């Protein structure tokens, strides 16, 4: 009985996660080479996350490339979805996050333009989306 209940919960959780992925991207989430980061907290413990991007989400308008990506935290498996605009000439970007707690997922208003920071999802994805 417990096994059946566990299986049911796992199936429902899997469907919910799959639904979030499907409504944000087109299920072509692609691992990014060099896209796994280990971050050191102030207390010197660490945590790790990986980024994946959706090639089919990529659109271009002049120097501006828009694309979607997700981050997955190691261990917890917490997944979040984002959309960036990158100016391939100035190496600046805007940032927006998807709220996947609602259906369909909604995108926050984009931030203002900022320089891409080193060792971030933006710095890793910029060479890929701008090539």
């Amino acid at each position, binding site marked *: 009985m417990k096994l059946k209940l566990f299986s049911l919960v796992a199936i429902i959780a899997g469907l919910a996660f799959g639904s979030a992925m499907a409504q944000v991207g087109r299920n072509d989430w692609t691992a990014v080479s060099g896209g796994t980061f280990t*971050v050191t*907290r*102030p207390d010197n413990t660490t945590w790790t996350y990986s980024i994946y991007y959706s090639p089919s989400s990529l659109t271009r308008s002049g120097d501006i490339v828009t694309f979607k990506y997700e981050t997955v935290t190691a261990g917890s498996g917490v997944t979040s979805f984002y959309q960036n605009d990158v100016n391939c000439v100035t190496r600046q970007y805007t*940032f927006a996050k998807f709220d996947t707690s609602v259906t369909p997922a909604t995108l926050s*208003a984009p931030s203002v333009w900022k320089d891409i920071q080193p060792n971030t999802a933006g710095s890793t994805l910029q060479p890929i989306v701008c090539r």
Partner: protein
Amino acid sequence: MKRYLNIIRIDDQGDRVLLYGKDPDYHIIASREDGVQVGDEIEFEPYGFNFGWFKRKVVV
């Protein structure tokens, strides 16, 4: 997408400071000249999975 944070720790990185609230996995980038101190409440704007940029100190 403005948010607010109470600062409980500041890491001085020389050219800039990193501001932390209760969540050690999230930091805010600010310059020294912004003059943020522990105990300040700030407004920031998210710019990535685990970081944001300082906008202003909230004056109570």
